[in-house]
């Protein structure tokens, strides 16, 4: 047994001065110790035998300590890009959508491409938090918070594009069934209106899910700030030199408000877990419906190349595919840059997500080939022409970029060495993100630019405004994600603690797992260790 007290031990271990108590070197061939393929051996969820306290200290530390040095320039850069994007949106609103490269034939282009691209990215967050929750995939606990945050930010980016694409943006409220002076209502038979409801419901429900998950973690941040204030009412960091408010006072108020007064009660946890499961259950059909409805925007039209029944499953698979690529693009650098993050996001997480990318990439590849097959088998010459035109027409480079990025590049994930190499996974995720953008571009622009009459044929080329607003949306996304990393609980602390081995009510009970009757001697043992620190005031 060690003679130093637990808090000091924790501090030493966090500083990397003491080897983890039971850690040791990972077994050979298991990467960081989590790539265990032996059935019956459970790979650790969290590395380095972290205690509950260490989990709290590490995760709260991301929100409490000053951010790493790289954070400020990166934040400045992404906020500047976001601001420039905003300036171009303002220019667009003032001048009109003629500033985009749209024309009479190609009347949807980058705007809708970007909308579908971003809304698709959002799907990974809900997949991780809802579907993997229902499937009892415990590894999701380390990535769900960041993925849900990413979902919300992606939906914000996505919602911008249809909003500014309506032409007279100040009339965008007419998308919603709001009583107006013309006394007319939206057309409920239009998939574009279904889209309004699907995307706004999706954004709202994802936000509620994310927020509910964070409530206990906000309460932890609140309690830590509260404890520091009680220990040292006059000390601690002052927010600004000329403002006599202490940072911890702000934290206690803001995190306290957001926590809704959560107090970790067993009765509350029961209802909380029920609510969480229900939200997971209703989010699962929701996430499938959203991208299905997005695909209806195309599939219910009569444009060759759009009018296909494979669109809903094909869009959903593509959304999960692109979404996981974005999760990996964000989390791989984050786990390298933040201290101790590799204990939570292990190689097994990376490998699992690489496997999902491989599977969904093959689904997407199957859909690409099936579209071609049906175009030929269906015997419709316009349909066949639309697909031939994709592959060998003037936009052939977009089509083959899509195939190379989405179908070919994930094939490296058949090899375990590739799935567990963070560099390879990062590069493939980057390619997949590019490929998924091209997929939407190919679907939209190549189908529109050559419709039925050759006299209507047109090409599309983006203008500076198109490009700036698209790049600006990445700025918005990254800015929001960096703020998330700085101020919010980046991991679901209460969920991570619950999957630690010592969280089991049977932990340390050798040989009597699940045997509730056989616990007597343990309680007896604990009985005489306690109460020397207890103190109570007399009661009358």
């Amino acid at each position, binding site marked *: 047994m060690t003679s130093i007290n637990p808090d000091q031990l924790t501090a030493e271990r966090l500083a990397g001065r003491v080897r983890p108590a039971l850690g040791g070197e990972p077994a050979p061939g298991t990467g960081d110790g989590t790539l265990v393929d032996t059935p019956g051996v459970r790979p650790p969820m969290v590395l380095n035998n972290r205690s509950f306290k260490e989990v709290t200290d590490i995760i709260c530390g991301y929100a409490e300590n000053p951010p790493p040095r790289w954070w400020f320039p990166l934040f400045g850069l992404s906020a500047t890009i976001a601001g420039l994007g905003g300036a171009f949106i303002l220019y667009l609103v003032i001048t009109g959508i003629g500033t985009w490269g749209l024309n009479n034939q190609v009347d949807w282009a980058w705007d809708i491409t970007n909308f579908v691209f971003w809304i698709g990215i959002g799907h990974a967050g809900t997949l991780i938090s809802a579907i993997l929750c229902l499937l009892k995939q415990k590894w999701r606990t380390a990535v769900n918070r960041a993925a849900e945050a990413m979902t919300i930010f992606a939906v914000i980016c996505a919602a911008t594009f249809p909003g500014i694409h309506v032409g007279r943006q100040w009339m965008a409220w007419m998308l919603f*069934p709001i009583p107006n002076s013309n*006394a*007319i*209502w*939206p*057309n*409920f*038979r239009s998939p574009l209106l279904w889209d309004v*409801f*699907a995307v706004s*419901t999706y954004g*709202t429900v994802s936000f*509620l899910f994310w*927020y*509910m998950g964070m409530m*206990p973690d906000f309460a*932890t941040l609140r*309690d*830590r700030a509260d*404890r520091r204030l009680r220990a040292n009412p006059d000390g601690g960091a002052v927010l600004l030199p000329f403002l006599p408010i202490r940072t911890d006072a702000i934290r206690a108020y803001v995190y306290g408000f957001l926590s*809704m*007064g959560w107090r970790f*009660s*067993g*009765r*509350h*946890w*029961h*209802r*909380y*877990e*029920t*609510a969480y499961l*229900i*939200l997971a259950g*209703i989010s699962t*059909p*929701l996430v499938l*419906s959203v991208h299905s409805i997005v695909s*209806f925007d195309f599939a219910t039209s009569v444009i060759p190349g759009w009018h296909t029944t494979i669109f809903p499953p094909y869009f959903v698979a593509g959304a999960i595919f692109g979404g996981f690529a974005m999760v990996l693009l964000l989390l791989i650098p984050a786990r390298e840059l933040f201290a101790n993050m590799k204990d939570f996001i292990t190689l097994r997480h990376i490998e699992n997500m690489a496997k999902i990318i491989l599977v969904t990439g093959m689904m997407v590849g199957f859909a690409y080939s099936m579209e071609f097959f049906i175009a030929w088998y269906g015997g419709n010459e316009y349909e066949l022409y639309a697909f031939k035109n994709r592959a060998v027409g003037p936009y052939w480079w977009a089509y083959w970029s899509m195939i190379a990025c989405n179908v070919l590049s994930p094939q490296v994930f058949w090899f375990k060495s590739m799935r567990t190499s963070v560099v390879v996974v990062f590069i493939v995720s980057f390619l997949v993100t590019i490929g998924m953008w091209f997929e939407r571009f190919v679907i939209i622009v190549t189908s529109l630019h050559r419709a039925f009459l050759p006299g209507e044929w047109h090409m599309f080329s983006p203008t500076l405004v198109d490009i700036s607003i698209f790049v600006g949306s990445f700025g918005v996304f990254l800015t929001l994600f960096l703020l998330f990393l700085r101020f919010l609980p980046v991991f679901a602390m*209460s969920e991570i*603690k*619950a999957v630690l081995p010592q*969280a*089991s*009510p049977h*932990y*340390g*009970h050798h040989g009597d797992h699940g045997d509730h009757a056989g616990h007597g001697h*343990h*309680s007896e043992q604990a*009985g005489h*260790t*306690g*109460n020397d620190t*207890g*103190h109570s*005031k007399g*009661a*009358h």
Partner: protein
Amino acid sequence: MATPLYVTETGEPIHGILAEFATPADLYHAAEKIRDAGYRRWDTFSPFPVHGMEEAMGFDRTILPLIVAVGGFTGAGLGFLMQWWMSAVDYQLVTQGKPFASWQAFVPITFECGILFSAFAALIGMLALNGLPRWNHPLMKKERFLSSSDDKFFVCIEAADGNFHPERTRQLLEKAGATSIELVEE
């Protein structure tokens, strides 16, 4: 308010007795003992939901699923009604040559409204059943209690419980393996 049964030496009414436990296993077994001793108004506190605590504490399943079902069906019903009334009653507009009340086209929005209302019912229902938001609580005055959000485990037996007795309750908690016990003022 009725006169409190128990007060401290300074006359403060007692909220209950707070006991700390070191591990989830200790908390779990203590909960079983308190349940078997017949207490009703008490609670456990842990930084994460301890598996099987519902059984150890012996409380009934929450009615939250029912609330969500009511919310969801209300949402779906209202969603459908809205589309039907707006398209077929209030302002009839021929679109795509379809009947005014073409229910098939109303399915997606009906579904989305059902999901939206269920999600709000789940979150608001959970908070309401838990008596939240409530930003203060007698327990939060105890500095020790704040580590329930970090790595410590607690039981609080309230003075309002019929079985509560300052000495006997305390002895029960001691026997259950509490590492520290203190009184909590209201």
